[in-house]
C-alpha cells in the first residue's frame, strides 16, 4: 500500500489544517509548475529516495574520490602547518591575514544561502523554495564547517583556541575580550551553526521516518530510526513540527543579517583604510547572499542532473535563483561604487590611496576579476534566454563564486599590504600549504555533500508534497489524505 510508505511520513495533506500548517504555501504563483510531470506523492518519495536505495553511480564514486584526494591534500597541509608553524603560509609582518581569512569569509558567505532560503523565504511564503531548501541548508552547514576551519587554523597556537570561550577558569577568572570583533565572530558563527543544524535536522525528521519505513536492512532501519527520533506522523507531531519550524525560522532570520554583519565588523571596526567603512555590514550581507546563491546554483545544477531530480528542481527554480543573483550583483556593484565614492568624498588621502591602490596597484588584476565576475558578467542575467540556458547559468554561477572569493581577497590583502607607513609595505603570495588547505576545504565540503546526497534525501519530500498538494488542488492526493 503506497499510502503506508508515503502517508506515514507525509504530513496530512489537507490545506484545511489551517494557516499554521501551510508551510511553503504562498500566494498563487503565476509561474511554471514548481513540480513538473504531474507527480503523485508516491512518485515524489520514489524519485527522491531512489538514489539512496540503489548502489551509487560511478560518477558518485568518481566525485568522492576527487573530493577525498583534495581532503587529503588539505590534511597534509594542516599537518605541515601544525607541525611547523604559521610561517608555512605566505603571510608576513604587514599582511597578517590573506588566504586564511579570505577563505573563512568566503565559506561563511556560501553558508548564507541556506538560512536565507529556509528561513526568510519561508516567512515570505516563497513556495518555490521547497525543492531546494534541503540541499541549501546542508550546504550551509558544510560551508560553515569549512569556514570554521580557518579561524581555528589561522591561530598561532590553535591548541589554545578554547581561550576565546567565556568559561570560568582558574586564571582569575580571565574572560575573553568582549570588545574584540573576533569574539563576536565566535558567537555569531556558533549561533548560526547551531540554529542552521537544528533547522536542517528538524526538517529532516519526517523524511528520516520515511527512510526508516522503507529501509530493508536492519542497520539502515535502526540508524534512520534513531535519526527520526520516533517520528510517527501524528497530528500532534505535525503541529509541533510546524511550530518548531516557524520558531527556528524566526530565530534564523536575524542571523542571516547578523552573521555576515559581524564578520564584516572584523574589518569595519579596524583603523586600516579599506577596512574601516560603515558600509561593510550591508555590503557583506549582500555579498554573502550573492555568493551563497551562486554556490547553491552550482551544486543544484549538478545534483539535478546527476540524481535525476529535473522534475523537482525545475527551470523555474533556476530562473528565480538567477533573478536573486542578478539583484544581488547589482547591490554588490552599488556597494563597490559607493566605496569608491566615499573614498573620494571623504577627502581622506589614506582612504583614497587605499582604493586607488586596490584598482591600480599590484593587485589590480584581482580587483578586475572581482568587478568582472561580480558585477559585469551577472548582467547577462537580464536576458531570459541566458537564464534558461542551464550551461551558461552554471558557468556564471562558478564565476560568481570566483568573483566573490576575490572580493574577500581584495578587501583583506590590498588593504593590508600598503597601509599607512610606506616603509612597511609588502607583497603577498600564497605558498603551497596555503593553497593546499584551500583545496582541502573544497575537499571537505564536497566529501560531506556527496555523503549527504548518498544518505539523506536531497529534496525535502514532506514539504514538496505539501507544495504538490497545493498546486494540484488536492485532486491528486492519493496518498496523504487517508
Amino acid at each position, binding site marked *: 500500500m503506497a499510502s503506508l510508505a508515503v502517508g506515514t511520513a507525509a504530513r496530512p495533506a489537507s490545506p484545511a489544517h489551517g494557516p499554521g500548517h501551510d508551510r511553503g504555501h504562498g500566494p498563487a504563483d503565476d509561474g511554471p509548475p514548481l513540480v513538473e510531470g504531474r507527480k503523485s506523492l508516491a512518485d515524489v518519495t520514489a524519485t527522491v529516495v531512489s538514489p539512496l536505495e540503489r548502489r551509487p553511480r560511478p560518477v558518485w564514486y568518481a566525485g568522492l574520490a576527487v573530493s577525498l584526494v583534495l581532503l587529503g591534500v588539505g590534511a597534509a597541509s594542516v599537518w*605541515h602547518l601544525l607541525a*611547523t*608553524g*604559521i*610561517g*608555512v603560509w*605566505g*603571510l*608576513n*609582518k*604587514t*599582511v*597578517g*591575514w590573506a588566504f586564511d581569512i579570505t577563505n573563512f569569509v568566503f565559506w561563511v558567505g556560501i553558508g548564507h544561502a541556506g538560512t536565507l532560503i529556509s528561513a526568510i523565504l519561508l516567512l515570505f511564503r516563497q513556495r518555490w523554495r521547497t525543492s531546494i531548501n534541503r540541499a541549501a541548508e546542508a550546504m550551509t552547514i558544510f560551508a560553515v564547517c569549512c569556514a570554521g576551519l580557518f579561524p581555528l587554523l*589561522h*591561530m*598561532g*597556537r*590553535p591548541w*589554545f*583556541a578554547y*581561550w*576565546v570561550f567565556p568559561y570560568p577558569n582558574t586564571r582569575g577568572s*580571565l*574572560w*575573553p*575580550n568582549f*570588545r*574584540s*570583533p*573576533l*569574539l563576536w565572530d*565566535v558567537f555569531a558563527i556558533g549561533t548560526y551553526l547551531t540554529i542552521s543544524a537544528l533547522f536542517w535536522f528538524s526538517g529532516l525528521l519526517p523524511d528520516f521516518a520515511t527512510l526508516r519505513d522503507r529501509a530493508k536492512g536492519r542497520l539502515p532501519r535502526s540508524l534512520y530510526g534513531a535519526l527520526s527520533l520516533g517520528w510517527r506522523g501524528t497530528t500532534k507531531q505535525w503541529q509541533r513540527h510546524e511550530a518548531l519550524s516557524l520558531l527556528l525560522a524566526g530565530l534564523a532570520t536575524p542571523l542571516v543579517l547578523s552573521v555576515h554583519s559581524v564578520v564584516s565588523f*572584523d574589518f569595519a*571596526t*579596524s*583603523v*586600516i583604510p579599506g577596512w574601516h567603512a560603515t558600509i561593510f555590514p550591508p555590503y557583506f550581507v549582500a555579498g554573502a547572499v550573492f555568493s551563497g546563491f551562486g554556490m547553491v546554483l552550482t551544486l543544484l545544477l549538478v545534483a539535478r542532473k546527476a540524481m535525476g531530480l529535473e522534475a523537482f528542481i525545475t527551470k523555474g527554480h533556476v530562473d528565480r535563483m538567477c533573478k536573486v543573483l542578478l539583484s544581488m550583483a547589482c547591490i554588490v556593484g552599488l556597494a563597490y561604487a559607493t566605496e569608491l565614492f566615499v573614498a573620494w568624498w571623504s577627502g581622506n*588621502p589614506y582612504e*583614497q*590611496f587605499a582604493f*586607488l*591602490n586596490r*584598482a*591600480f*596597484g599590484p593587485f589590480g588584476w584581482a580587483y578586475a576579476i572581482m568587478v568582472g565576475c561580480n558585477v559585469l558578467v551577472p548582467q547577462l542575467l537580464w536576458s531570459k534566454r541566458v537564464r534558461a540556458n542551464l550551461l551558461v547559468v552554471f558557468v556564471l554561477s562558478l564565476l560568481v563564486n570566483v568573483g566573490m572569493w576575490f572580493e574577500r581577497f581584495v578587501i583583506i590583502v590590498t588593504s*593590508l599590504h*600598503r*597601509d*599607512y*607607513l*610606506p*616603509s*612597511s*609595505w*609588502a*607583497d603577498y603570495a600564497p*605558498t*603551497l*600549504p596555503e593553497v593546499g588547505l584551500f583545496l582541502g576545504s573544497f575537499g571537505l565540503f564536497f566529501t560531506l555533500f556527496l555523503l549527504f546526497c548518498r544518505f539523506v534525501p536531497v529534496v525535502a519530500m514532506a514539504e514538496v508534497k505539501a507544495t504538490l498538494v497545493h498546486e494540484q488542488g488536492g485532486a491528486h492526493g492519493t496518498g496523504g489524505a487517508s
Partner: protein
Amino acid sequence: MTPRPPRWSSAEERDALARAAATGEPSRPPAAEEPVPAGLSRRGFLAAVGFSAGALAACARAPERVTAAPGEAPEHAPSGGARWFSTTCGACPAGCGLLVKTKDGRPIKVEGNPAHPVSRGGVCAVGQASVLSLYDSRRLRSPRVDGRDTDLAAADAAVRKAVASGGAVRVLTATVTSPSTRAAVARWLAGVPDGRHVEVDPLSASAALAAHEAAFGVRALPRVRLERAEAVLAVDCDVLGTWVSPVEHTRGWAAARDLGAPTPRLSWHGQAESVLTLSGSNADRRVRVSPGNVPALVAHLVHRVAQRTGGAAPSPADPCPVAEDFVEDSVRRLVEHKGRSVLLCGTNDLDVQRLVLLANERLGAYGGVLDLAAPSLQRRGDDAAWAALLDELDAGKVATLVVAGVNPVVELPAGRRFAAAAAKVPVRVVVAERPDETVALATVAVPAPHFLEAFDDAEPVAGVVSLSQPTVQPLVRARTLRACVAAWTGAPEPDLDLVRAHFEREVAPKQAADASPGRAFRRALRDGFVETAPAAPAAPVLRGDAVPATAPRAKPPAAGRLVVALFPSVALLDGRHAWNPWLQELPDPVTKQTWGNAACIAPETAAALSAKDGDVLRLSGDDGTAIELPAVVVPGTARGTVGVALGHGRLGTERFERVGPRWLEARPTTGRDGRVGTDASAFLALVGGLARPSGAEVRVERTGATDVVARTQTWSSLTMPTATAPHGGERRDPVRETTLAAWKADPRAGNPAAHHGPGLWEGLRAAGPRWGLVVDLTKCTGCSACVVACQAENNVPVVGRDEVARGRDMAWLRVDRYFADVEGAPGEVEVVHQPLPCQHCGNAPCEVVCPVLATSHSEDGRNEQTYNRCVGTRYCANNCPYKVRRFNWFGYGSHDTWADLVLNPDVTVRERGVMEKCSFCVQRVSEARAEARREGRALADGDVRTACQQSCPAGALVFGDVTDATSAAARAAKDPRRYRVLEELNVDPAVSYLVKVRERPLDGAPKEGPHHG
C-alpha cells in the same frame, strides 16, 4: 647548528662539564695560562684576580670591587642580579668604553660607559653585537700545530724552535691600540735577530698618516672633534658610519646639531662620495662623485679654500666634477667658519691627503676641529710596510710569520698574493678568534680570547688609556698576542700582570700623584679608563714644504668600464664580524639589505644595464678576477660606479645555511657558493704602496640569473606611486622636515598641528606615570645601534635570509629609511632615517581587537603583550597603523647551547605562534621600580633607560615619564618641533618625534642655478 660537545681531557673536567651543562653555566675548560686553581668557580676566579691586584696594592678593600663598575656594590648583588664591569670594546680599534652586564656569570649585554672620553656612552651596532661573538660555538677552541689540536705548550715550543733556528721574524697585525701589547711585541722582536712588527689596517688610512708625518712629523691621524665644528665637508669619508671612530664622531656631530640645547646649534655638513653612505645620508647637502674624480674635486676645493684664505695651492687641472655651486657653497661655509670648520677625506691617496691637510691648515682646523696634540691612535697601519712584507714573503726571506688581529687573505689588499707567498714561510703562526682564511694557512694556530674574556689595555687616542677586564672565565683555551709573545720571550706571564706592569710603569706616573700605582690601576679598572696628560701639549707645527706643486688628476675609467668602489658596511666593517648573525641580519642603514651584499648601482647605470634589484651582475676585471652578485639600485650612487660592501663571502659563513626555520618552501641563507654574500676583496688592490679600495675597472654584465636580496624595507619613498596616488599626488609625513632658515623664522615650521576630532576614549586614562620616548630626528643618523641593542636586550631571534626576504624580520625597533629626489639636481638624493618602535598608543588599536586580552594597557602607559596568553590571531598586527608588531611564524630557538648563553634571563623567549613587540624595556622599568621601592623612594628621572636609548651614539632618544614635567623626556616633548606619527588617527602614541631640520642646499646663500660638471 648543534655544536660539538665540549672537549674534556680528564675525568674531573668531564664531570665539571656535565655539571655545568646541568646548571646552565657556560661549559668551559679551565684556562690554561691564567693562574686559576683547578675547580675554582667564576666568582672565585674574579676574587682571586681582584685579590692579587688588591694585595699587591696593599689594599684592604673588598677585592671584587676591583672589577666592578662605578656605583655598584657587588657584596649586595643577589644571585640572579646583574653585575656590571667596565671594559673597552674590542670590536674595532676605536676603543669605546663599555659597561658589561653579566647575569649568573655570563655577559649578556654591553652598554656605553657614559664617562668614557672617547665614546661618551655611545656604542655602535657592532659593539652591541660583539657580546654574541663571545658565545660563538665555532670559535677556535684549542691551539693547533700542523693541523692537530694540541696545547699551548706545544704551540709555544713550535714557535720558539722556529725563532731559534734563525731567519727573519715578522709580526703582522692590524693597528695595535694596546700599549702593553706593542711593548711586549717590541720586547720579543728585540730579542730575535731580524724582527719587525708590521701594522696594516684593512680599512687603511695610510696616506693620511703619511701626509701628517711629512707635514707635522707626527705619524698619527688627528682626532676629529666634530662637536667643535660649524661646517664639515666630508669627501669620500663615511665619518659617521665606519671611518676610524664612528661613535666618537657621531657623538660630536650630534652635539653640534642640537636644536634643543640652551644655545641651539646646527653645524653644516656637506658630503661628496661615490656610494651612498650613512654619513652622506645625513648630510645637509650631498653630491655624488665617482672615485676617479675625487682627486679633481679635492683639487678644486683646496684651490678655492686657498684663494679665499690667501694661501697657495696648485691649480686644478681637470674640470670640476660636481655641481659648481656645491663647491662654491661648501668652500664659502668652510672659510666663513674658519677655525671651526674641517675638510675630511678618506681617500687613501697621498697627493689628495696632502692637499686636504693643506686646506685644513688654511681653515685653522688643526687646533680646532682636528686635534693633533692628542691625536687618534686608532689607525697606524702602513701600507708601504705591507707592500715591503709581501715582497719579502715572495722572496722567501721570512722564516717565521706571526699574524694576529687581522685576516690578510681577504681583508688586506693583494690578499691572494699573500696567500700564495705565505706558503714560502716555514712557520706561520696565527693568533685568531676564529678559524678563518688565514688560520687555514697557519702551521701554528693559537686561539685569541674574545675581548670580554681577557685583561687588556688600549690607547685609542693619545692621553686616554682604556682598560679591559674579563667578564667571564675564558670559554676556550685562548691567549692574547701579548701573552703569546711574552711566553715566546721566555717570560710567560698572564695578561693581568703584563697589563698592570705596563700601566704602573708607563701610565700611573703621568697621573696625579695622590695614588699608589696599584691603587691607580684598580681605580682605572673600575672606571674603565684613565686620562693622562698629553705628551705634547702644543700642537705640532706645519713644516715648510707642505704645498704640493701640482694638483692630483682625475682618473676616468676606460671606455665601457665601470669602477668598483669597495666600502665597509656599517654592520660587518671589513668582515671581521661576518660570523655574527645579529650583524648579518642587521639591515644596512642605506640599502636595508641583510645577509649578503650587492652591487649598488645608480638608477642610470641600472637603466643602461637594464638591470633591476636582484638581477645577478657579473663584474669582471681585466686581470681575470670576476665576481657575481645581485644588483641593488641605490639612488645617489655615482654614475659609472659599482659599490660593493666588503666583508662578505667569508669562510665559515657556510654554517648559516640553516639559520632560519625549515619548512616546505624554505630557502637557504647562503648563496650558490655556500657562503653569505660575495667576497669582493679580489678588487682590493695595492697600488703604489697604498691600498686602493676604490678604482678597479670592471666590465659589468647581467648573467640572466636572479638572486634573493633580503631587504627589510622595499618601498623607499614617502611619495605615493603615481598610478595610485590621489589626485594631485600624495606625500606622507611620518618624517617631518624643515630647513634651518624656516626653523629660525618659526620653530613650528614643517610641523602643522594635527587635527583632532572628538574621541570616545577621553578621560578614561588613569592618572600616574606615562612612559614616553622622544626621538630627535635632527640628531638621529640611522646608525642602527639601537636595533642591535634592542635585539640583545630583548632576546629577539635571528630568522635568516629567506624569512627576511619574505617580510618576516623580527626587529622590535626598526629604522625606516626614505629617499627623496633633490629638486633641481637630478640623480642626487636626500635621505631620512626614522627609528620606529612600538608607539605605545594611549588608544591602542591593537588592544581592542585581541579576543583573549593578550595585549593590554599598563597603568604606566605602556602597551603590554602577554606572551603566554596570546593565541596568535595576528589581528593586533593587522590593526596596528605602525606595523611594529612581530609574529613568531616559527619556533626560532637557536638550538646552539653556546649562543643561548647570551639570552637575557629577564626577558621571556617567545614561543612559536605568539605576537611580540617593543615593551619599552619593561624588565628595566620593573627592575628600577623594585630598586626604588627597596630604597624607599620614588622613581627618579633617568632611573629607567631603555636599551635603545642607553647606547644611542647621537643621544637622539630620550625616554622618561612624560607626565613628570621635570623629566628630560617631558622637556624634550615641549619642543615646538615635536610631533607624533599618524597623530590624526587619535591613537595617542607615547613616542614622539622632533622635526628633522637640515640646512637646505642654498639656505642663506646667493641663489644660483645648479649645474653639473
